[in-house]
């Protein structure tokens, strides 16, 4: 459920990011367009002013030239001539420039084109007057001047120029309006993009917030679960511990309570034996003195039946006593406090082998101990019991006609130490590989003393030390018992 959420989140996040980027790019494009637009608008204004400038220049040059001519015709002052010479040459360039400037508008171009002959004509007239005046022919010049429509031409030029001006202004307004419209449109688009961007941002923000909140929530839940788990584990451990204690106590009490009647059975059996001995002695005495009183039945009862019955009761109770003691021992071991200490295993195993040597020799078996072995930090008694049990067992269950060779070896694997007790004895049938570790269970031919307690005890001890014990075996070829122990003992519930 969570990963599905996550996938969804990722998808939406991607959508948000991509659309955000697209919107940003669109925004940039729009801003660029707006900038270009305003540049264009500024250029248009400049252009219009340039046009107006050019018109102004043209008319001023014309006016000044005209004024200079008129003045010169009235009074040929060199100054006026100078003014004329200064301004007249500017007329045509101004006109040219104007024509160039208005080339963007066909109407204006047309107007300027129509203006040109008038201006040229006016200029020619002025030039002629000035030339005549310069050559001293003032009379002709003045006559021509008064006969010429100079003033009205100038007026016409002024009108035309004003019209061009007005048209240009109109054009500017038109163009500015268009630009403004465009600008407005761009701004609208920009606004839209901005809104969308803000929307996307808000959406992704909300998404992230939601996701983080979910994440935090689940983290919190996980944390709670974790702490709960610890609590639950602790509780279970306590339960198990209680159950285990209960079983131990039960085993202890049961074995004790079983002991009491057994004391009676054994005690009164002994009493019976005593009494039987007396009776048997009496039968002997009577047999000596008055044989006719003693029948075969009496003789058998006193000398055979009773001792036999007593014998069976005895052996059975003894066996029962051993079993009870075994249970008692197991329960006692379960309650024994383990005290870990450094155990040099080479020496420990060596000592066990030395202790078992005589017994092994009697049974025609020998030990081979492969050194070195990893040292352990464990309860000495427990470890000794495990290995002496396994090694003693190995000398016990030999394959007849073959000398017993028992190899003991150990190796370290990380924090575990693995020991093997390998024999070439009679082996264990596969179906018994688990059974042999159960209490009072034995495997194979029952030709050896034992109650079926040793291996049960070994396994209980191995478990208590935090280890395991397993067996590999092939019938009539041999068995290998593998003891896997942590190198260092740790209290139950701490590390295990």
């Amino acid at each position: 459920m969570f990963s599905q959420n996550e996938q969804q989140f990722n998808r939406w996040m991607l959508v948000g990011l991509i659309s955000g980027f697209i919107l940003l790019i669109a925004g940039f494009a729009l801003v660029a367009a707006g900038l270009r637009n305003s540049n264009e608008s500024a250029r248009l204004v400049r252009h219009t002013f340039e046009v107006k400038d050019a018109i102004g220049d043209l008319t001023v040059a014309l006016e000044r030239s005209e004024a200079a001519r008129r003045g010169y015709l009235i009074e040929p002052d060199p100054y006026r001539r100078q003014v004329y010479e200064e301004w007249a040459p500017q007329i045509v360039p101004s006109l040219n420039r104007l024509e160039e400037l208005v080339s963007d508008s066909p109407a204006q171009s047309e107007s300027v084109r129509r203006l040109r002959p008038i201006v040229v004509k006016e200029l020619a007239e002025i030039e002629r007057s000035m030339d005549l005046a310069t050559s001293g022919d003032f009379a002709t010049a003045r006559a021509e001047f008064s006969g010429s429509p100079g003033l009205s031409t100038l007026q016409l030029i002024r009108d035309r120029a004003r019209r061009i001006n007005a048209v240009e202004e109109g054009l500017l307004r038109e163009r500015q309006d268009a630009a403004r419209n465009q600008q407005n449109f761009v701004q609208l688009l920009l606004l839209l993009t901005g809104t969308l961007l803000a929307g996307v941002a808000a959406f992704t923000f909300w998404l992230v917030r939601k996701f983080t909140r979910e994440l935090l929530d689940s983290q919190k839940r996980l944390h709670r679960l974790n702490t709960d788990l610890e609590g639950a584990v602790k509780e279970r451990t306590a339960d198990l511990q209680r159950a285990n204690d209960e079983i131990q106590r039960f085993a202890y009490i049961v074995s004790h309570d079983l002991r009491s009647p057994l004391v009676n059975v054994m005690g009164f059996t002994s009493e019976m034996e005593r009494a039987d001995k007396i009776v048997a002695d009496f039968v002997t005495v009577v047999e000596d003195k008055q044989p006719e009183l003693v029948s075969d039945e009496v003789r058998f009862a006193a000398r055979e039946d009773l001792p036999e019955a007593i014998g069976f009761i005895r052996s059975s109770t003894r066996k029962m006593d051993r079993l009870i003691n075994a249970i008692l021992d197991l329960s006692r071991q379960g309650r024994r406090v383990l005290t870990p200490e450094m155990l040099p295993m080479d020496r420990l195993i060596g000592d066990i082998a030395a202790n078992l040597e005589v017994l092994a020799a009697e049974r025609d078996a020998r030990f081979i101990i492969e050194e070195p072995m990893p040292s352990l930090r464990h309860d000495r008694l427990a470890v000794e019991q495990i290995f002496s049990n396994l090694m003693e067992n190995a000398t016990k269950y030999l394959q007849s006609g073959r000398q017993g060779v028992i190899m003991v070896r150990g190796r370290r694997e990380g924090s575990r130490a693995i020991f093997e007790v390998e024999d070439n004895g009679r082996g264990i049938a596969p179906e018994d590989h688990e059974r042999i570790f159960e209490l009072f269970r034995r495997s194979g031919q029952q030709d050896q003393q034992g109650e079926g307690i040793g291996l049960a005890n070994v396994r209980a001890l191995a478990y208590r030390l935090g280890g395991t014990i397993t067996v590999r075996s092939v019938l009539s070829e041999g068995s290998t018992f593998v003891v896997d122990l942590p190198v260092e003992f740790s209290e139950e519930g701490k590390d295990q």
Partner: protein
Amino acid sequence: MNAQQPVRIVMIEDDEGHARLIEKNIRRAGISNQLVHFLDGTTGLDYLFNNPEGPGKNGPALVLLDLNLPDMSGTDILAKIKGDEKLHRVPVVVLTTTDDKVEIQRCYDLGCNVYITKPVNYESFADAIRQLGLFLSVIQVPDADA
């Protein structure tokens, strides 16, 4: 003074068989003192404290006590005897199947004089009881009224 008064043996033991075997073996050891037997703690305590013949009122006694009783724990009886003004000098021999170290320590802490674990093996059991009998024949028991 009651120096001449024989020591009475008070046995509190719920198992009649055990009681019988104990008595037999004590007798075999040559002890002929009177032996009174109780099957549970309540009647035993009642005798010890209230019976006109009991050590609470009269005469020296020695207690043979089993710890596993049906109605109360033997250690409670031990505590009661050892906590009593009159009875605390009465020797108590705990004779039981329990061989738990903690239990043994507790009994001695409570003032038990001798702690014997009943051996399951009858020969050793009989032996232990006979030795106890010999022990009983030589120990001096203080007067309860002293």
